[in-house]
């Protein structure tokens, strides 16, 4: 996991933060001496010697217990050390997840013979970011496996450890700690901007499908990896959205990008009526050997606790998730019915949306590279928008700004979390960069400006101006969503009056 980055200095090596350990334990499972190993439900890396595992778990347990005496309601969240940082999270009663991240470091070569000096940059990583990453790990586990408690009820520790092993073995490999940032904290949803009429058409489509295939319990509709409609509740959608956009869609984007004759391209011959295909379940309905197994997800775990088949079906850029109670048997017949019903309609709808989107874009004129970048997040609807991040892929999320600036954003956010009041923070960063953070009620906006020799007042004025003009531009640009994003910021984010 070490990805050395060549710095300017002679053979100076930079190491990004990386995952050292990840373990899950329950202190109640081995309370007596000599039974400590029973507490451990999962440990990564698995090849660590048993006693070391026990020692590490014991240490965490002790820290949590010790700090609890100071503040019983808010247990410790992280432990900072020179070499690494530990994050604690108790998602369910007595179940603890601990993630140990090695601090980023710089390796400086010394004179011949001597080992290189290592400088740990212990202040470089942010608690909010990695705390959020840890919580996301649990949410993702829960989405596909349900709660720890349910697994315990169903099959005891044995089943739980099996499930944990199976899930985290693969999931941890996809964690890219070096590229985690503020967006991981928000865990937001990007909404697709759409005019009312097209939106109503989508509504109508969803309702019709749900009506004719009454097995379908919930539906979610996405376009261009952005959400348009969710029948699931917000929290469940949030994590499902994360899974779809960072894992499922990127895995399936290759066949579409591949050429017509590429072997990667799914067989579409003989089915030219529509472009619909299953992203989960059968990859080719024509195949007599096709398997009709769909991933199962768990939603509403707080109350109704539902287990559902997740069918993801895509036509061009439009993707629809159909969720069906896991107790239903889904076979070829159902899939063919769904394909026949949804495929043509969705193909039509997708081209409708695309057309509408292009019209809106043309109205607003060509996309100009703006002089600033921003991240917007609304806690109320989880709406998120970033011009800093490039398109997410399965492996990394690329940002277009320097990591130092990203860290400033994270710091500002951490300040915002501490107080309830609306706030505004302006930071002068290196090389003529200014970072402005605004918080109003539930919304947060971060702007990165690059202006030569600007002073505080000028930057403040500039951001005000940007908010006003950006609002107008984006209203044309994307109809609804961006208006929502920025129009209100103008008046609901204020400058201090004293």
């Amino acid at each position, binding site marked *: 996991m070490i990805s050395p980055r060549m710095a300017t200095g002679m053979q100076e090596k930079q190491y990004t933060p990386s995952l050292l350990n990840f373990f899950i334990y329950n202190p109640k499972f081995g309370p007596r001496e000599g039974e400590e190993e029973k507490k451990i439900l999962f440990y990564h890396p698995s090849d660590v010697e048993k006693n070391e595992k026990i020692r590490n778990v014991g240490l965490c347990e002790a820290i949590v217990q010790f700090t609890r005496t100071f503040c019983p309601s808010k247990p410790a969240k992280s432990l900072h050390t020179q070499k690494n940082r530990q994050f604690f999270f108790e998602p369910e009663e007595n179940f603890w997840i601990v993630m140990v991240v090695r601090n980023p470091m710089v390796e400086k070569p010394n004179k011949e013979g001597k080992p290189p000096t290592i400088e740990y940059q212990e202040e470089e990583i942010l608690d909010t970011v990695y705390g959020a990453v840890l919580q996301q790990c649990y949410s993702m586990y829960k989405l596909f496996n349900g709660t720890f408690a349910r697994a315990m009820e169903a099959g005891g520790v044995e089943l739980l450890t099996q499930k944990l092993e199976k899930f985290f073995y693969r999931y941890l490999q996809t964690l890219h700690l070096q590229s985690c940032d503020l967006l991981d904290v928000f865990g937001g949803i990007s909404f697709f901007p759409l005019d009312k009429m097209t*939106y109503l058409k989508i509504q*109508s489509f969803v*309702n019709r499908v749900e009506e*004719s295939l009454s097995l379908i319990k919930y539906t979610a509709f996405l376009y261009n990896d952005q959400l348009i409609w969710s029948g699931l509740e917000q929290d469940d959608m949030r994590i499902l959205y994360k899974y779809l956009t960072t894992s499922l869609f990127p895995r399936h984007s290759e066949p579409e990008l591949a050429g017509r004759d590429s072997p990667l391209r799914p067989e579409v011959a003989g089915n030219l009526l529509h472009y619909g295909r299953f992203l989960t379940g059968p990859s080719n309905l024509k195949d007599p050997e096709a398997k009709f197994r769909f991933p199962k997800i768990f939603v509403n775990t707080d109350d109704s606790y539902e287990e559902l088949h997740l069918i993801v079906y895509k036509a061009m850029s439009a993707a629809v998730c159909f969720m069906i109670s896991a107790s239903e048997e889904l076979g070829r017949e159902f899939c063919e019915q769904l394909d026949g019903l949804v495929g043509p309609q969705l193909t039509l709808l997708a081209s409708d949306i695309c057309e509408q989107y292009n019209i809106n874009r043309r109205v607003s004129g060509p996309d100009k590279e703006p002089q600033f970048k921003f991240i917007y997040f609304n806690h109320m609807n989880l709406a998120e928008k970033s011009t800093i991040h490039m398109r997410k892929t399965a492996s990394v999320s690329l940002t277009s700004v320097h990591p130092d600036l990203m860290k400033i954003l994270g710091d500002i956010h951490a300040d915002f979390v501490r107080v309830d009041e609306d706030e505004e923070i302006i930071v002068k960063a290196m090389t003529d960069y200014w970072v402005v953070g605004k918080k109003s009620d539930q919304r947060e906006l971060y702007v990165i400006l690059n202006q030569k020799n600007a002073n505080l007042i000028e930057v403040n004025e500039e951001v005000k101006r940007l908010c006003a003009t950006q609002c107008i531009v984006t209203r044309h640009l994307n109809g609804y969503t961006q208006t*929502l994003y920025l129009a209100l910021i103008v008046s609901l984010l204020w400058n201090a009056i004293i």
Partner: protein
Amino acid sequence: MSEEHYLELCDSPVQFENASSVNNVFFDEANKQVFAVRSGGATGVVVKGPDDKNSIAFRYECALKSLCFALIKQNRPVFSFQNGGQGGSEISQVCGEKNATVLGFCWTSWNEIVFITDQGVEFYQVLPDKRSLKLLKSHSINVNWYVYCPETSVILLSTTVQGNVLQPFAFKCGTMSKMSKFEIELPVVTKPAKIILSERDIAVATIYGQLYVMYLKHHSRTGNNPGAEVVLYHLQREGACKRSHILKLNTTGKFALNVVDNLVIVHHQSSQTSFMFDIKMKDTDSNLNIHQPVLPARSIHPYKIALTGPAAVGSQTPVPCELCILFLTFLLGSGYLWYLQVKLKPVVSLLQDKSKLMEFLLRRRDCKMVILSVCSQMLSRGDKGSLPVVAIVFDKLNQVYKEYLEAEQSYTMAVECGPSRGSTAHKRPVRTQAVIDQSDMYTHVLSLFTERKDVSHKFIIAVLMEYIRSLNQFQITVQHYLYELVIKTLVQHNLLYMLHQFLQYHVLSDSKPLACLLLSLESTYPPAHQLSLDMLKRLSTANDEIVEVLLSKQQVLGALRFIRSVGGHDNISARKFLDAARQTKDQMLFYTIFRFFEQRNQRLRGSPNFTPGEHCEEHVAYFKQAFGEQAFIKPVTL
């Protein structure tokens, strides 16, 4: 079984004496009245119409109020008729050539009459005072027979040997205009030329505001044609008459035609059934305008004549309607005259295709309640896969609704622009029953539907959204009570995130009532607060409301910043803000707010002090107590 009959006779027929050797019965198509003439009028004339409460009875010699119907038809070119005005005066007129035969006459208006002889037509103005007629125009042409359409004042003359070339004449305000003649295609051409086309097979009627000549085309049995058909010729004021529609009867025999509510009804004598055609109903499988009957042929609902007297007890005889003498629009039975009516209810159950049904109903006269009940029925069943049908039905309704709104709009625009352009008075569009607006749908269909317990809420919401979608598609502004219905239903089923998403995409349009409704939801769904504030902000006419909302949430500073950003801070009540600031028990906040208003006073009035009218004494005292005398801004003394 009564649901089977989609045609019926009206409740109150016109009753008259049977035609007999001493009794003649005439029907005046123009006035829709029946004349029963006893003994050639000498012993009495009874005039009855279906709308008349009382019949008029007179004898030939006695006085009659107005110029009336002529009764005497003689085979002489001398024509005489009676004017009842002044003691039964009589006007005589000789018309045509000596050897001409009078075929008949028609009243084209109250004082204009047309005589048709076998040699031509003569158009006269009646001058009652002078007891004479004034010839307005005449035209010579060989005539076999004629057909007159009183509604449009058009006379069709049959010419040529075979009688199949028809020459129409239109009469209007003293003018007679010859329209282009046309030929009816005959099924067989007989070698020795003789009249083939009979007047019995020709009728003229207005259908959907257009004039049509209907020709009942009997097919010879030898042909491979399955049966007779009615051929419609579209008669236009200008231009040639074109064959436009063919109504397939698929049977042979004796037929009679009626037009009721723009539907062509063809009565078949031998089967005693009637076919119903709607020329606007397109058959998908033919690009020609060939029409099959809308519904399978059925007989007219049997009519029971309540007999009076002892004979009537227990025996009400259904009248075999199809044996009646048939007139256009009317059925003239022996001794009875009925209106023919179309019953829409049976059509609803007989016509399964909802889309076709809606189209059909929307074109009928008394359709509103039937349409609304069809909608209710369709929704209550909640059949699987019925949503697409619901969508089509809504679209059809809203199409008509939109057309009306547009007509109304252009009318108002034209009226506003004033009568400057020309003298053509703008006609206010007529609101027919087919215009089903949002309040109709709300009152009769949707509000009841959303309260049904036996329908899943998913379906209810889907239907409401479908209606809103349809309205949007036709760019009709959605009324807020529909939104309220949506919100009510969503809240009832705790689907607040769904509501949230609808608001996010502005499916529910902004309005003050809606924003207030959202505010009231805040306790159950906290995000409603932000949604509501955003909506108020977008409305940009609700700044006072925003301030109130913020103050009620103790966001005093936020309220002040907001009002300042919209430039209203010079007019706000200082007391209101200071009250709110005091309530927060935040000393620094109070200080800030107080200082703001001191500065405002200084700026506006040159002094930081509050005026007595602002009622801030209490707060001034509190400020003094909390921060001391020296904390006040010192008045600038010049």
